[in-house]
């Protein structure tokens, strides 16, 4: 299929393909991390969400949803809300336990609270509290129980549970195609910034951007995903390429959200940021990744998001 027949619309000179992003149902949870300053809340949140790009290789997809003002947090200090996505609530249990235990409990001045109201619950402080070696105490306020774990700079306060949803969506995506690699990166950064303003979503890859978009499977045993050769510009001519003759690079933005609507809103915001930039940075086309619509339950058609 040629690019011309795929085009749904052209916006500011950028071709928007008549295709869709195919995304999958996931489980997701939210956690609020606070500290004495926003600097240290950010540090704890950044470390806790590290190595969380792809659920296949990392066990979870993680990122910072947004920063919280003191009046928005349970202890009146600056905070950051992180989101963690996995295949199931059970799969999230060890991820939350290890990430909070190793990266937040250890971070100076930190505290940790539920960041998602949901009927289903997931242990948050249930495991880290045992670090207290019997000196930990609990304080129940309303429906929430808070654990106080003695640490060397005072107490680590952590709520016992947070909410978990099985209505989350992972794998919303935009593929930005162009003929100027630096300009393409700047455009993708602008799209990630726009997506960051949407609540309940994360872009889990480095800086929110993926340069190694993948296809399912591989010629090698044990590889679940491999190079998306149809979108690799250096393979154009040697494989059944999806790229036009002038394409120099493709960058992908992957979006996970607590709801399907939040993913759609994030894709819409990202797409608008790309098209608002026009072609001056070398962007020629926006498309999306899918598997023919047979694997993922959620389909986000680009033409519906313009």
């Amino acid at each position, binding site marked *: 299929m040629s690019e011309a027949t795929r085009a749904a619309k052209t916006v500011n000179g950028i071709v928007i393909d008549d295709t869709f992003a195919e995304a999958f149902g996931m489980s997701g949870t939210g956690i609020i991390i606070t500290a004495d300053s926003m600097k240290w809340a950010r540090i704890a949140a950044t470390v806790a969400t590290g190595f969380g790009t792809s659920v296949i290789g990392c066990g979870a997809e993680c990122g910072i949803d947004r920063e919280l003002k003191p009046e928005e947090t349970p*202890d009146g200090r600056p905070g950051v809300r992180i989101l963690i996505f996995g295949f199931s609530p059970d799969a999230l249990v060890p991820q939350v336990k290890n990430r909070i235990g190793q990266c937040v409990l250890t971070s100076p001045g930190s505290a940790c609270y539920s960041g998602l109201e949901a009927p289903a619950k997931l242990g948050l402080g249930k495991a880290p509290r045992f670090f207290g070696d019997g000196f930990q*105490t609990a304080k129940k306020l309303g429906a929430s129980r808070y654990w106080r774990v003695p640490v060397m700079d005072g107490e680590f*306060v952590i709520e016992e549970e947070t909410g978990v949803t099985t209505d989350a969506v992972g794998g919303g995506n935009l593929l930005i195609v162009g003929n100027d690699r630096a300009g393409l990166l700047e455009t993708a950064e602008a799209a990630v910034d726009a997506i960051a303003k949407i609540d309940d979503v994360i872009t889990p890859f480095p800086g929110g951007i993926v340069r190694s978009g993948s296809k399912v499977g591989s010629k090698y045993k044990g590889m679940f995903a491999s190079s998306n050769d149809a979108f690799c510009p250096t393979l154009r001519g040697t494989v059944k390429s999806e790229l036009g003759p002038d394409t120099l690079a493709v960058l992908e933005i992957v979006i996970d959200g607590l709801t399907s609507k939040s993913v759609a809103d994030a894709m819409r915001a990202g797409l608008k940021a790309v098209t608002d930039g026009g072609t001056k940075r070398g962007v020629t086309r926006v498309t999306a990744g899918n598997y023919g619509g047979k694997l993922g339950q959620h389909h986000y058609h680009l033409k519906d998001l313009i």
Partner: protein
Amino acid sequence: MSGLTLRLKAPTAGPIGLAGVVPSKLAALSGYDIGALVIGAGKDSVTLGDVFSISRTSGDTLTIEAEGAALDLVGSGLDSGTIRLVGNAGAQAGRKMTGGTLEITGNAGSLLASGMTGGTILIGGNAGDNLGGLLPGDRFGMAGGTVVVDGNIGARAGEKMRRGTVVVRGKTGAGAGTRMIGGTIWAEGGIGPLPGLMMRRGTLIGPSVESLLPSFVDCGRHDLVIVRVISRYLKDTLGSRAPKAMPLFVRKIGGDMATIGRGEILLPA
């Protein structure tokens, strides 16, 4: 339940027990059956209609107007809805409450909120001894919910209290938090003498304490995040009735070291 007002017909000779007179129970009864409801026990039992004139009112609050009467067990077993007592309550108001709101405009007697596990109690005046305590046969005292007393409270508040929050505008009597297992008592007017005898866990907060048991120890001056969490929670749930936030740094007095010593008295540093 539609609104209901119970108005005392005449001063009573002795105490009247109102156990089980709660909105969820009355909602299922006709006006006649409400009047025929037996209150009290044994030879002292009477019907609700014998003692009160009963009228339907707007709203969904059960209002009891009983100036001059000694009403025990007001709001006992309250699980939902609101009871408003205009006047003073006798003993055991809000006993074994699991939900809803009990508002008493005057004073409350002893054993207010004993065995309470949920809901909110608001007292306009003072409360007697053993607030949140336990009766013979009970394993624990108060185990949940929130009590706010605008005045002072009597001795041994929070005995064997396990969970829940008590906010006192005035002072506590002697022995607050005796044998306490958990929960919080926050006395804005100060903590009375010798609190926390054999206290295992739990928190007493106040601007001062009259005297300490020798088995309590000074743990130093700290910026405790949990105090901020408690303040924020009370502000969110009680609004203007919440206590004024403690200063950033508090002095932690730990005890009772005669037992496991996980309890604490928090004072301004």
